C-alpha cells in the first residue's frame, strides 16, 4: 500500500432503466479514474467512446456525448517510489438492446464470462493485466485517444522490447486456459552426422514474425538466420541441446521471440509459445533432408485473451444500485451493489486489483506482487481450488496472483481464519472491538509445461495477503467504524464483509447522486 487513499463512494444509480444504470456506473468509474490521473496515480492509455461514438463520448447517458454501447477505456496504474511495475485495467460497457454483441466493434475482441451476449443485461465488464519485463506494456492498440482500436488477434501481449511474461485476469485468459492457451510443438532431432550445414527450420511466434534457425557447422549462416551450431560427431542429444540453446539464448539475443524449448524424452525438443492464444498456431517448416528429422506444431493455442468478468450487471429496470471506488497509489477496490444473478437486496460484489503483501518466505521471489480477487457475492469463497476454465462462470469467484514473475499470473484460493473471525467482537479488549483481517490466498497451480531454472513447481502454497481490503466478521452491511474511516459491505445481515477505507463523514447508503462523494 502506498500513497494517499482516494475514493468515490456511495455513487447512486437510479435511472429506472437497466442500461442507463449500467452506463452511469461505467461513467462514474471513468470519472474516478480520471481523478486519479490528475493526482498522478493513473494514466489513461486508450479509450473508445463506443459504437458510432467519438473522442467526445465520455459523459453520462443523459448528457451530451455519452459513453455508448461497447465503449471501453484502459488505465495504467503508474509506477511509484515503491513499485517499479505498472498494471493495467480495461473496462467495457455493454448494453444488450443495441443489437451487437460484446465482441462487436469498437470493442473487438471481447467476451463476457465466456459468451458474447448475456441475455437482456446491461453490463460493465473488465480485465486487468501486467506486463513483465521489457517495456512492461501489455496492452496493444492503435489509433487516437477516444477512437483507439484494440488488437483484434491478441487483446493482451507479452511486453515488447524484452518482455518475458504476461500476468492477466480473468484467469481463463491465462496460460493454458480457454482463452489464452499457448501453442506447443516438437522437434525430433537427428545425429549431427545426418545434418547438412545450411539446413533450416522456421518458427513463427505470431507476434515477432518468423525466425529461421540454420544448422551451422562452418561458422557462417545466411542473412539473419539463427545459428544452431553442430558438428558431425554430435549425438542427437547434443543436437537437442544445441537447438534449445539456439531457441532460448541465441534467438532472444537477436530480439523478441516468445517460443522456448526444453528437453523432451528421447532427445526431442518440446516447444511452447509463451504468448498465449491462437495467434501462436503457426506451422513449423524445415529443410532438413534426413527423414528422421521431424517437426510438429505449433498448435493448440486458443483464444485472443479476450474474456472479461463482470464489474456490474443488471437485468431489470427497477433496482437502484450503489457502487464504491477506493484506491491508493497501488491498488483499487470496486464494490457494486447487485440485485440480480443470485444477489439479494443490498448484496455486494467486490473486486480488488493491485498489490498484495507476500509472506516473508515468498517475498524474495514475489518481486511483482500483483493480484486480482473477485467475489461475486462478498465474501470470497475459500478452501477450494480456483484455477480452471470455469472460473469465468458467472457466479464463481476468481483470483490470480503473480507469485513468481517467471510464470506470469496463476490461480489462487482464499483462506479465512474462521475460528477467529467468529469470535467477534474481540472481548479481549476493554471495550470489545471488531477486527479486520488480511485476505490470505494460496497459489493452486502446478507448472508442468514450461521450463524454468527453478524447477516445475512454482505456484503452490501460501503466497501472501491483500491488506488494502480486509475481511471483517460480525458487522452488518453498510456499517462503519465510529470514525467512519472504515466501511463494511457484503450481503445483508451479519456475516463476513469486506472492510474498505472510507471518508470519515459519509453514512453508507445515504447519498442520492451518481457522482457520490469524493475524498
Amino acid at each position, binding site marked *: 500500500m502506498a500513497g494517499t487513499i482516494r475514493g468515490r463512494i456511495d455513487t447512486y444509480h437510479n435511472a429506472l432503466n437497466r442500461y442507463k444504470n449500467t452506463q452511469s456506473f461505467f461513467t462514474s468509474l471513468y470519472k474516478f479514474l480520471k481523478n486519479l490521473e490528475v493526482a498522478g496515480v493513473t494514466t489513461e492509455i486508450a479509450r473508445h467512446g463506443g459504437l458510432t461514438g467519438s473522442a467526445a463520448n465520455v459523459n453520462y447517458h443523459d448528457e451530451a456525448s455519452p459513453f455508448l454501447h461497447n465503449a471501453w477505456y484502459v488505465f495504467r496504474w503508474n509506477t511509484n517510489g515503491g513499485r517499479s511495475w505498472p498494471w493495467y485495467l480495461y473496462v467495457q460497457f455493454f448494453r444488450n438492446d443495441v443489437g451487437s454483441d460484446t465482441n462487436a466493434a469498437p470493442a473487438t475482441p471481447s467476451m463476457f464470462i465466456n459468451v458474447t451476449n448475456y441475455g437482456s443485461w446491461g453490463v460493465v465488464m473488465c480485465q486487468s493485466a501486467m506486463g513483465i519485463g521489457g517495456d512492461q506494456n501489455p496492452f496493444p492498440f492503435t489509433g487516437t485517444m477516444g477512437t483507439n482500436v484494440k488488437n483484434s488477434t491478441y487483446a493482451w501481449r507479452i511486453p515488447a522490447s524484452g518482455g518475458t511474461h504476461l500476468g492477466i485476469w480473468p484467469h481463463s485468459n491465462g496460460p493454458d486456459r480457454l482463452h489464452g492457451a499457448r501453442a506447443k510443438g516438437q522437434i525430433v532431432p537427428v545425429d549431427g552426422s545426418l545434418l547438412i550445414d545450411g539446413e533450416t527450420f522456421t518458427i513463427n511466434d505470431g507476434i515477432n514474425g518468423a525466425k529461421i534457425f540454420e544448422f551451422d557447422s562452418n561458422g557462417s549462416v545466411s542473412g539473419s538466420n539463427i545459428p544452431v551450431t553442430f558438428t558431425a560427431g554430435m549425438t542427437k542429444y547434443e543436437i537437442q541441446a544445441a537447438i534449445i540453446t539456439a531457441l532460448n539464448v541465441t534467438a532472444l539475443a537477436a530480439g523478441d521471440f516468445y517460443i522456448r524449448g526444453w528437453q523432451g524424452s528421447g532427445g526431442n525438443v518440446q516447444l511452447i509459445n509463451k504468448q498465449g492464444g491462437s495467434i501462436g498456431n503457426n506451422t513449423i517448416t524445415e529443410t532438413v533432408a534426413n527423414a528422421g528429422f521431424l517437426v510438429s506444431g505449433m498448435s493448440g493455442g486458443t483464444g485472443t485473451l479476450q474474456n472479461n468478468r463482470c464489474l456490474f450487471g443488471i437485468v431489470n429496470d427497477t433496482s437502484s444500485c450503489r457502487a464504491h471506488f477506493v484506491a491508493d497509489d497501488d491498488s483499487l477496490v470496486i464494490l457494486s451493489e447487485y440485485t440480480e444473478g443470485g444477489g439479494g437486496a443490498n448484496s455486494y460484489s467486490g473486486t480488488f486489483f493491485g498489490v498484495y503483501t507476500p509472506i516473508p518466505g515468498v517475498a524474495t521471489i514475489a518481486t511483482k506482487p500483483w493480484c486480482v480477487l473477485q467475489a461475486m457475492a462478498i465474501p470470497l469463497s475459500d478452501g477450494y481450488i480456483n484455477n480452471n476454465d470455469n472460473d469465468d462462470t458467472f457466479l464463481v469467484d476468481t483470483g490470480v496472483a503473480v507469485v513468481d514473475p517467471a510464470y506470469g499470473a496463476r490461480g489462487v484460493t482464499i483462506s479465512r*481464519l474462521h475460528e477467529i473471525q467468529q469470535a467477534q467482537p474481540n472481548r479481549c479488549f*476493554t471495550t470489545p472491538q471488531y477486527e479486520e483481517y488480511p485476505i490470505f490466498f494460496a497459489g493452486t497451480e502446478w507448472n508442468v509445461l514450461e521450463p524454468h531454472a527453478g524447477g516445475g513447481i512454482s505456484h503452490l502454497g501460501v503466497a501472501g495477503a491483500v491488506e488494502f481490503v480486509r475481511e471483517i466478521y460480525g458487522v452488518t452491511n453498510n456499517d462503519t467504524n465510529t470514525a467512519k474511516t472504515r466501511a463494511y459491505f457484503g450481503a445483508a445481515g451479519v456475516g463476513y464483509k469486506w472492510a474498505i477505507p472510507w471518508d470519515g463523514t459519509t453514512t453508507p447508503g445515504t447519498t442520492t447522486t451518481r457522482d457520490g462523494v469524493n475524498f
Partner: protein
Amino acid sequence: MSGKIRGRNCVIPYSINAEPGRDDIQGCFTAIYRYMKYLESVGVTTEIARHGGVGGSASNVDFWDGAAPFLCNAWFVFRFNTNANRTWPWYYLVQWNKANVANFGVAPGAPGLWDNQAGSYAYTSIAVQAAIGVGGDQNPWNGTGTMGTSAKGTPVWKVPAGGTDVYVFPRSNSTGGAHTVSRQNCTLLWNNTDYNTTYSSAINFISDDDSFMIVYTNSTTANPNNLVDYGAAYNGLYTPVSGLTVAYPFVQWSADQGYRPANQATGPVAGTTPGGGIFNPGVTAGVRQLGFSYFDEFWINNSFRANGRGVDFAPMLLVCTETNYTGALGFPQLYKFAYPIFSRYQTLGGTRKALGSAYSPSGRVMIPWSSAVADAYHTRPAGIDSRDGTTFIHLDTPIAETVSVSESLVVTP
C-alpha cells in the same frame, strides 16, 4: 521475545531397573532441572525452591542412577527473571511422581494435582505450573523452608506482599476456576503408563529470556524404537495482536502431538485435560481458557506445500475461547507451525526443526534449532552422557522466517 534463544537436546536411555519407564520419567524431570540450572548460570532464571522428593534431602538432584537422585514427588520452582523487555517475573514449578511409590501431590509434593487428578499406580507423571504476581514484590511463591527441603504452601501461590493479584496457570487456579483455594492444579506435561518400556526418550528444551518450551517423545511399545513422535509444552510470552495492550502476555499449554487441534478448548475452568491457560486483559483481566488457529483452511490436501521452495512457517494464533471473554489475543513466541511435513524435518540451514506425530506428513511444531546439534533417532545412545544433552545458542533472529504478514492483524479503531 528477548535475549538469546538457547536449546538443549537430551536423550534419556531406558534404565536397567524393573519398570524402566518410570526411571525414564525421572530422567526427563532431572533433565529439565539441569536445563533450568543452566539458564540460571546465564542469568535467565533463579532457583527459588526445591524438594528432593519423598525421603530425600537437599542433595537429591541426580538422575535415577546417581548417588542422590530426585525421588517421588520431588519438585522445584524457578523464576524467569525480569529483563529490559519484561518488568515482571514469572515463576515455574515442575513436579514429578513415581506411581509405584506415591500418587502425584503426596508429601512433599502436597498440595498438587495434574489435570485435576492425583493419578494412580499406572501414571508416572510430570506436571507444571506457572504464576505471575501482580504488584508489590511481585513474588507469588507461598512456600517456606530451606532450599532442597522446601515446603509448598496452601495455597501454593499467593498475592505478592503489597500486591494486588496473582495469575496462576493452568487456568483452573485463577479466578473462576476449580482450584482457586489451594491453587495446586498443574498442567500435565506427560505421563508414562508403559512403565515397562525399554525404549529411550528424547527431551528437547528451547528458551529465550522470556519463554520456555519442552518437546519430548512418547516412547511406548505402540511406537517402539522411534523417537519422532513428539509432544510439546509451552510456558511463556505471546505477542499481542495489533492494537491490543496486554500487561502480562503469558500463555501455557501442553500438547501430546506437538500442537492442539484448531480451536480446541485448552485450560478448562474445571482444570481437566488439556491443561493450560492464557492471560486475557479484557473487561475482567485474568487467566482464561484458550484455543488455537492454524490457517488450516489452506491445508485441504497435501499439494499445498511450501510454494515448492521450502517450508512455510505459519504463526499460531492464540484465542480466548472462554464464554464472555472470546477473541484473538496474539501469537506465541518461539513457536511456529508448518504443514504438511514429516516430524524431524529440518529446514535448510538447520535453523528450525519440525516435531510432531511420526507417521505421515501433517501439522508440525516448528522450533528453533541448530544444525550443529544431532538429535536422537532410532537408537539408544551408546552412553548415558547424552542425557545431559547438547546445548546450543541459536541465531538471534530466527523468527524472521515466519509468516509475519498474518501478525499484522488490525483492530477496528
